[in-house]
């Protein structure tokens, strides 16, 4: 993995970094690169309440906020920003204002690499809207001054339309940290995690590929 000056990660939900990006984050931190993680919402609209329920609609954000802090700590992220938007409403925000907020974040952090979602290929409307705002912000910079932009995509049509990911990081060296980050988001991952641990113990080949490889598409700007 290329050494960066500063990495900025921008996602809308507290667990968005866990499965696809946390190994990459942990690797950058291990390389001594500062990582800023800006998380737009607290995942207020999460649906997992448990059976029997362990929380309710009003208390879930408090739980997810603590989980986010724990995951960031597990990965060694020192600069965690919670931007105060609301889950499932990001796409309805004023586009220009949102892009401006992203631009001021970029100007302040001055990253050499930004990681976000690929707009249009990231399934959840908040993912697409967040990626689009970051793209608009980076686009407004002169081409020579733009940081690299690596995007996560996972829609059913992403490979068909974007081609295979041009960047694949094998993160097996920091797999423990990745699993700790996944586990930190207990309210969201515990249900499936039982299954994951079992498969990892048995070195389930498909699971190992899925956990150990993180895929990114470098964003291609028109202009």
């Amino acid at each position, binding site marked *: 993995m290329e050494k960066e000056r500063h990495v900025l990660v921008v996602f809308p939900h507290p667990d968005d970094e866990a499965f696809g990006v946390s190994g990459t984050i942990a690797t950058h931190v291990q390389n001594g690169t500062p990582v800023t993680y800006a998380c737009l919402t607290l995942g207020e609209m999460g*649906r997992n*309440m448990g059976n029997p329920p362990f929380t309710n609609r009003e208390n879930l954000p408090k739980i997810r906020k603590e989980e986010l802090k724990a995951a960031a700590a597990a990965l060694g992220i020192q600069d965690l920003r919670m931007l105060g938007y609301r889950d499932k409403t990001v796409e309805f925000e004023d586009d220009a204002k949102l892009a401006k907020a992203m631009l001021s974040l970029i100007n302040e952090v001055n990253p050499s690499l930004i990681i976000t979602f690929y707009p249009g290929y990231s*399934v959840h409307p908040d993912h697409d809207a967040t990626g689009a705002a970051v793209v608009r912000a980076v686009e407004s910079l002169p081409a020579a001054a733009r940081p690299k932009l690596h995007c996560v995509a996972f829609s059913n049509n992403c490979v068909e339309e974007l081609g295979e990911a041009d960047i694949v990081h094998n993160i097996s060296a920091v797999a423990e940290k990745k699993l700790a980050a996944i586990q930190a988001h207990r309210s969201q991952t515990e249900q499936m995690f039982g299954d994951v641990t079992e498969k990892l113990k048995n070195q389930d080949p498909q699971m190992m590929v899925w956990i150990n490889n993180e895929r990114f598409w470098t964003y291609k700007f028109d202009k």
Partner: protein
Amino acid sequence: MEPIKDYRQVQEAINAFANQDVYIHLETTNGAYASHHDQTFFSAGAYIRNALVRYEIGKITGNDPYRVGLKINLGWIYAEGLTHFEVDEQNRLLLAGHDNKGKLAVALEISATPFE
């Protein structure tokens, strides 16, 4: 949250908010990933937070899952599929419907003060 076992507890809580200004949170959802996991699935939902209304009569009916309807000044509010409830530490009535995996499918909440 508790499973609604005795609907009269909920009815009493509903009655306590009648004929006064109240804030409503109402949502239904299949989750944002429903159509991603099953492309034949038609995903729909609706959401309103902090609607300020006043109801003259509110009623819980049905038999697990339950329905709740509120007759408000100029119309109606209702939710169906309700399985759990709680009067929380801020004295708000939280009603929710959870599917058998513990995922929230519907929520109806009533409060005398705005939700955060």
